């Protein structure tokens, strides 16, 4: 099939796609052992789709890495495994549950496991000798992420030092690093939540079903609808009810909330996101509400 382009003006979505593919190819060519973080969440699904396009007709030339909190939605794990099999990829899993079981980590008082992902992540990076890890972080997600580079140099503790970042000029990404250091690469840094959904819509990308409206048993906590599940039990005073909801982000079930929504398709979600008056993290992530600098603190500790 041929496409003739008349006015030679790239749409913003095409420009963002080309930029992401360029970054994926650059980092993949300059590093020896890349890996791509893949959780089954929408941003990582888009990342994998971009990687497949970047190297077509070759297969994605690196493994995918998932740091499993053990608090995931079952349908997301099923989706993860099916996707990995369909694309013929190798999946490396770092398990927070294993670390808790053998005492290397202990459960937090508030029960959330997002901050506990950092050690299994760093261990997976050093055990597999990954020198660059692709992440789906976006600068529009958070004020700390707005200062993140496309290529982010990390020391052996995975720490991010916002005061000491390399300037990033033109399309020249300097990924030089020394022994013990590694690099995090963020090809979709410049995408917004709306861009992600428009791209999912345009490309017909499959997602775990919980991103779309469905009936679910939920209860109200911290101003969010929380799913009833093994790691997310209502207190006696929290009334369980069935609501039509969807998730804007999927993460640790114990701190991720759903929003009431009738959006049953990507097209519906695009409309909903365009009209939304609340950010996705503000709406659905209890852990980012802890303080103004919650994300900044996690990033400095080696988080994505």
């Amino acid at each position, binding site marked *: *099939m*041929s*496409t*003739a*382009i008349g006015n*030679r*003006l*790239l*749409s*913003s979505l095409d*420009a963002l*796609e*080309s*930029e992401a593919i*360029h970054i994926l*190819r*650059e980092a*993949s*060519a300059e590093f020896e052992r890349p890996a791509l973080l893949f959780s089954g969440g929408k941003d990582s699904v888009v990342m994998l789709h971009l990687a*497949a*396009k*970047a*190297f*077509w*007709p*070759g*297969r*994605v*030339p690196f493994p995918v890495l998932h740091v499993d909190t053990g608090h995931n939605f079952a349908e997301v794990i099923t989706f993860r495994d099916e996707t990995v099999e369909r*694309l*013929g990829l190798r999946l490396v899993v770092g398990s927070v549950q294993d670390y808790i079981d053998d005492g290397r980590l202990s459960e937090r008082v508030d029960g959330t496991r997002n901050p506990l992902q950092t050690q299994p992540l760093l261990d997976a990076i050093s055990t597999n000798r990954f020198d660059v890890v692709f992440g789906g972080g976006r*600068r*529009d997600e958070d*004020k700390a992420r*707005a*200062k993140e580079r496309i290529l982010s140099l990390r020391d052996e503790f995975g720490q991010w030092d*916002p*005061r000491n970042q*390399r*300037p*990033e*000029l*033109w*399309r*020249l990404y*300097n990924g*030089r*690093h020394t022994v013990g250091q590694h690099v995090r690469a963020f090809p979709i840094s*410049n995408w*917004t939540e709306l*861009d992600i959904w*428009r791209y999912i819509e345009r490309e017909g990308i499959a997602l775990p079903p919980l991103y779309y409206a469905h009936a679910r048993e939920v209860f109200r906590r911290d101003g969010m609808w929380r799913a009833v599940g093994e790691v997310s039990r209502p207190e006696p005073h929290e009334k369980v009810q069935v609501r039509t909801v969807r998730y804007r982000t999927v993460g640790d079930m114990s701190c991720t909330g759903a929003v009431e929504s009738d959006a049953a398709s990507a097209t519906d979600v695009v409309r909903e996101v*365009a*009209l*939304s*008056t*609340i950010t996705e993290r*503000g709406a659905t992530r209890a852990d980012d509400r802890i303080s*103004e600098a919650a994300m*900044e603190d996690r990033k400095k500790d080696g988080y994505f």
Partner: protein
Amino acid sequence: MTLLTENVPDLATGSLFRFATAGSVDDGKSTLVGRLLHDSKSVLADQLDAVERASAERGFGGAAVDGVQQLDLALLTDGLRAEREQGITIDVAYRYFATAKRSFILADCPGHVQYTRNTVTGASTADAVVVLIDARKGVLEQTRRHLAVARLLRVPHLIAAVNKIDLVDYSEARFRSVEAELQRAAAELGETSLTVVPVSALRGDNIVNRSERTPWYAGPSLLEILERLPSLTDLETGSESFRFPVQTVIRPQGALAPGLDPDEYRDYRGYAGQIVAGTVRVGDAVAVLPGERTTVVSAIDAAGEQLDEAFAPQSVVLRLREDLDIARGDLIAEAGTHGGSSRDIQASLCWLSPKALEPGSLVLIKHGSSTVRGRISEILGRLDLDTFTDQPAARLGLNDIGTVRLRVASPLPVDAYAASRHTGSFLVIDPGDGNTLAAGLVTGSDPASVGPAGARSAGGPDVS
């Protein structure tokens, strides 16, 4: 709610526009950025709540303006704890907003210690630079520096926002005097199209909406200006010769994507990259550099889709008629438009590191998709901001802009930066710790110096 739908650009026609803001300390740049986001309805309710809370906690601007309690809009952008505690901006921050006409990427470049570094970084990808000037102070050394950097990097559009116009009582006389000062500085730099707009970021005059308090100003608001300007990629696509640095060679052989027919792709060999300038069509004659190899484009692939034509900044895979020995680091260019590779290069450097440059330093040069060793053999001069001329200098330090001669270990397919931004720019990297020392812009090169390493084509095309 209805206003927000107006902020969704049309998917088919909405383009991406990148701009950078630069200002001196206390010019109110964070406030201007916050104002742009706020008045273009790009700030969502929970972000606004957080700013309202923080503004109240810090007792920001106790006085209401026009009966409306003011928010510290700088808090929308100063994201890091140290920034909020010290009231400063540490590093370039990227912001995203959209209007019905465009999606914008804003690089907010702070004016503190590493001012040149931040401005160069933001300007290197920008379609436009907005330089902020305090109406009370007029043109400062920093202003001249920002204008010089923007001009050096050939940012297509330069806008000067004369801020705090409310603090000079919306005086036309004061604005005209600052405007004349700005136009003089721009003219010294050879810049002929500086747009000057009077604004108050704090009160919102002429940022998104045209102000009634500046009846003597008939021009558009800052946002209206940004919505109308043609973007860099329009310019790169339109007038420049085709340039395509090869990022990687795609030969799937055993590692074919699942679902594809192995027989069909057995001999597939494509060159992946991003078009950095111009347009390419199937059937075009192209040169491969280094060396003097020429061939013809036989196909343009975009992940399973075959294109007749592609243009900057698309990422594609090119297939060529001859099976040449092409690797990462090579450049595919429109035939007959490139002067050849070179080992001796003259360039402007923006020095970005606290570690000063001494002549004779061994460095790494990252250009396009290749990184080679190099030596900076001579410092020809350093830019003096008072006169905008090069003065003799023994070394270049942090924030200096200088002209140098350098020699690289193997020939690079450079263009002059003025002719092609992405094949005319490079990074200078410290071979010891890997840090970026400088941004380089090619001003000239000597093709006669191409040595034996450039003679790769001697054996002729490797046709299999």
